């Protein structure tokens, strides 16, 4: 009987076999067209010559990459020195993104843990609350944050009213403001994957560890964290990658001093002052950085499962 059941199961799935391969087609088409073509265009543009009013001249050139790394003086005839401007911007972006990731992890992990340990009936409400900010456009949220933390904004007024400070705090246009913006924008990306893995965590493992003489701290370090690590790593990638290329928060909250990669690239394509090949090259460098991080992660994961 079991054999018959198995065979009929096979035949019902093989009935769909001829079209199964086509189910993925829409996704392939959209990704193929709207991801590969633009990225390919950027890659090509980054090796072309710039036109003064924006756009490109179809002539191969390494000038964009050269400009990123070397300073050859105003007229390009001096001996090349290392150009630190853009490397600094990239370094600052990396540090900002890493800090935002860490902040999201510190706040997001306990949040996710809390939600995952609620009774099943109330978890959906908590998850809903985490995603509520996404009902409002990111631009609107970032602008309102700018309003909240500006010198004469509600936050400063409140702090002055309580007597905690006498002079308004300079929050806007600082690294801290950018941090705040990034953290606020990407926190749910940290909470949701961690929630998913903690929710699947079998708390009998914690009991087993306690039964085998482990203290609470040891249980967290040696059993809980290693078991939910995939969720933590996924959350970190989901926060770090968009933070690295973030544009709204640094632009609106950080001001000119705290330029990040996103703003640098954006500026190259704006109006007549831009430099398309240079913007494309900066985008390509950013993309390579992200890919390197992801590849290291993927390699470690596959190495682990082969073990």
């Amino acid at each position: 009987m079991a054999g018959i059941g198995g065979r009929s199961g096979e035949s019902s799935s093989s009935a769909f076999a001829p079209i199964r391969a086509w189910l993925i087609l829409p996704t392939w088409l959209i990704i193929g067209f709207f991801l590969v073509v633009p990225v390919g265009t950027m890659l090509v543009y980054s090796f072309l010559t710039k036109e003064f009013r924006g756009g490109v001249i179809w002539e191969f050139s390494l000038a964009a990459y050269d400009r990123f790394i070397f300073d050859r003086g105003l007229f390009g005839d001096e001996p090349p020195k290392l150009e630190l401007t853009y490397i600094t911007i990239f370094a600052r972006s990396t540090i900002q993104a890493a800090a935002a990731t860490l902040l999201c992890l510190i706040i997001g992990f306990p949040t996710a843990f809390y939600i995952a340990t609620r009774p099943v009936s109330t978890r959906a409400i908590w998850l809903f609350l985490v995603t509520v900010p996404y009902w409002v456009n990111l631009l609107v949220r970032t602008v309102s944050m700018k309003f909240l933390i500006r010198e004469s904004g509600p936050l400063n007024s409140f702090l002055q009213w309580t007597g905690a400070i006498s002079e308004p705090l300079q929050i806007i246009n600082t690294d801290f403001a950018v941090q705040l913006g990034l953290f606020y924008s990407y926190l749910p990306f940290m909470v949701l994957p961690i929630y998913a893995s903690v929710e699947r965590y079998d708390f009998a493992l914690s009991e087993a560890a306690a039964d085998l003489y482990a203290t609470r701290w040891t249980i967290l370090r040696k059993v809980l964290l290693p078991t939910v690590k995939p969720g933590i790593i996924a959350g970190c990638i989901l926060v770090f990658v968009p933070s690295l290329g973030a544009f709204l928060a640094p632009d609106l909250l950080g001001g000119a001093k705290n330029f990040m990669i996103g703003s640098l690239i954006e500026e190259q394509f704006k109006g007549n002052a831009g430099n398309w090949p240079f913007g494309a090259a900066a985008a390509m460098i950013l993309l390579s950085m992200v890919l390197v991080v992801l590849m290291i992660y993927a390699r470690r994961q596959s190495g682990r499962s082969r073990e």
Partner: protein
Amino acid sequence: MEGEIEMPAVELQGVVKKYGEFVALRTIDLEIKVNEFFTLLGPSGCGKTTLLRAIAGFEDITAGAILLGGERIGDLPPNKRPINTVFQHYALFPHMTVEDNVAFGMRMLGAPRSEVADRSRKMLELVKLGDFARRRPDQLSGGQQQRVALARAMAPRPRVLLLDEPLSALDLKLRHAMRVELKQLQKETGITFVFVTHDQEEALTMSDRIGVMDQGMLQQVGTPREIYEKPNNRFVADFIGETNLFDVRVSEVGERGCVCAFGERGSIGCEATGRPLVGAACHLSIRPEGLDMRSREDAESPLGGKVEQIVYLGTDTQYLVRTPVGELITVRRQNAVADGVEFSVGDEVSLLPRPGAARLLAD
């Protein structure tokens, strides 16, 4: 003399556990001896797992005391109690190798590195998994995971090992094999085992003593033979094995037993726990193998009727006999010792309780 009396391994004194209004454990008093294989047996929801978790330290008790070798451990957290648990679904650490799982407890106790490695290997050999040290739990079968859980729990040399329905996730054949192995392991290691199960066969085959639980209370504590042959009350008689229960009235109470009447049909002698009152309505329990079946012409008995169904069971044959008042009595006869008398459906038979087989029960 007093010095020679051994401290019980585990002693429960008036243990009560309440969840709000719900009483999970009502005043449990129990002594579990050193080196004993003790089984808590009962239907699901009877409180046996709650009791086990209270001993392990996962549940705070509402009242009473838990003593381990004479010392109160009721207020200690689980990681301070020299007791280890084999969990129902094993709860092996998925990110660690089998070896690291087994070593975990010893490492937490701060045992020297060489000793940890040594004992882990020995424990794995004891459960016949010496070659699997470097595997991860998800690369093992259910039975193998079960053994790892055992090795992990026994490695830190606990004073008491708690086992929470450890065989329930295994298939039948493996379960039977593990019964023998568990019993053997317990003898070899000399650790006191407290085993929780709802499977009476498991309890009867492995235990030195059994505590039968129902509705948060210990209904009876005794050896498997005592529990099976001399059940205290109706629940125990009904839960352990198969039995025929009759509504009877006590007509005579003597020194060594009493006589009870089946309404108008007559009366039979029986054993009883305690001294029932004359005239009390009680239940009489007779196991299917405790009834001798004779042809109606050969013997007279208040119990008897018409054979309604015959089921061949290999070593035994089971007969269902319908009495004139409509009761259905199960009788089991061993095939090997068949006395040449064959019965068939429709035969009129008399059923005679064997000596000591009829037992009067309190409700």
